[in-house]
């Protein structure tokens, strides 16, 4: 078995997309690791849908305050200039186009950029949380996820079979094997995990991947 990237490396690669001064929301699960992965020298303002803008890294055990948590229920640390607001104001911010980048987890992404990230077979009671609002309102949606399911099924598909979060919203997919751009006219493979080949990654992907002219190894 070849090595795949671990979750922290995926988060580090996704966080390289954060431009200086960007307002960024991190979704439930793996995306939360991006709070500890900001590229050196850049300022990023993290927004959390429970009503917080400008928080810092994830809190250590000694720093934990359960009245200062991100939307994944993880305690985070304060930064100068941070502010708090209620849920309605938070989603005005989200729907109104004031979030530059959202990083979300996914069960499936389609070649058109459709996102399915909240419901799966056998679990009819799970909910979408703020995912639909974020996918509809953020200027750019990045997905971080494992390239395949636990049983090896592709998650990057021609058409989503799981319930949709939003249509045509994903712009970039970062997995443990690849960085893939959603162009609106198919998927372009931009970067590939060290030691992996295009045919190998294509073999684990249901949708067709077009290699970029500048296809390269994922670097951090």
């Amino acid at each position, binding site marked *: 078995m070849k090595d795949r990237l671990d979750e922290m490396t995926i988060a580090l690669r996704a966080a390289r997309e954060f431009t200086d001064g960007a307002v960024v929301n991190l979704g439930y*699960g793996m995306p939360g690791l991006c709070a500890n992965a900001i590229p050196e020298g850049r300022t990023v303002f993290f927004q959390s*849908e*429970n*009503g917080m803008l400008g928080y810092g890294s994830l809190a250590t055990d000694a720093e934990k305050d359960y009245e200062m948590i991100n939307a994944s229920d993880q305690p985070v640390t304060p930064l100068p200039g941070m502010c708090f*607001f209620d849920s309605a104001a938070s989603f005005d911010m989200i*729907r109104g186009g004031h979030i530059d980048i959202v990083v979300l987890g996914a069960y499936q992404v389609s070649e058109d950029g459709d996102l399915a990230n909240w419901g799966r077979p056998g679990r009819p*009671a*799970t909910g*979408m949380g703020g995912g639909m609002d974020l996918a509809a309102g953020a200027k750019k949606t990045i997905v971080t996820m494992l390239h395949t399911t636990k049983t090896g099924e592709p998650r990057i598909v021609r058409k989503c079979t799981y319930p949709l979060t939003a*249509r045509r919203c994903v712009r970039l997919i970062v997995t443990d094997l690849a960085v893939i751009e959603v162009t609106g006219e198919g998927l372009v493979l931009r970067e590939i995990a060290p030691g992996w080949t295009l045919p190998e990654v294509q073999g684990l992907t249901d949708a067709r991947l077009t290699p970029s002219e500048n296809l390269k190894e994922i670097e951090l």
Partner: protein
Amino acid sequence: MVLNKIFRNCNEAVADIPDGATIMVGGFGSFGGLPINLITALADQGAKNLTVIANMGGVGFELSQRIKPGGYQDLGILFEGGQVRKFIGSVPALGGMPPNSPLEQLYNEGKVEIETVPQGTLAERIRCGAGGLGGFYTPVGVGTVVAEGKEKKVIDGKEYILELPLTADFALIKAHKADKLGNLVYRKTARCFNPVMATAARTTIAEVDEVVATGELDPEVVVTPHVYVHRIVEVRR
């Protein structure tokens, strides 16, 4: 307006909640902003057939031990007691947890109804109810199951769906401090859904860390004006 809003304890503050009531419960997830002492008082009180509007359905004590050593109570206690007929919220159950939260178990047994609402849409439906509006058009949920059966409208070339207001008989909320009139301030992310829900119920009951004298809260920092708050219980942290 009621002038004496201070209740001695949570049990007295929730004593008259009747069977069949619609109840908003503030907070976000399992910690930070959940009015847990009012929730457990309602569990003791035993009202049945409730409709509960809250962001998350809670995990219940058993699953909570996977999240935090020693475990904790959350909204799950109301489902465990079979008190709820219908849940309206954005995360009835967490996909990352085993499928045996009290709400998910009851749902799978056909014993409770669930209306799943995108989180921002939930907040805005409550704000509409609070503000006397008849609904709003939102792009959130277009092209998904959320849009099924809802009026659709194209405005300036963009698709929207109509969402309707939510109100409640009671709101159980958590704030940091209240003055004796009921003006409220919050602490950090424990604000979340609390100020929104406080405005949308006929009777709003606030669990607070501290009650201070009227005049002690800076009017510039009051988040919830006292007109929305009907009962106050101090539960020291």
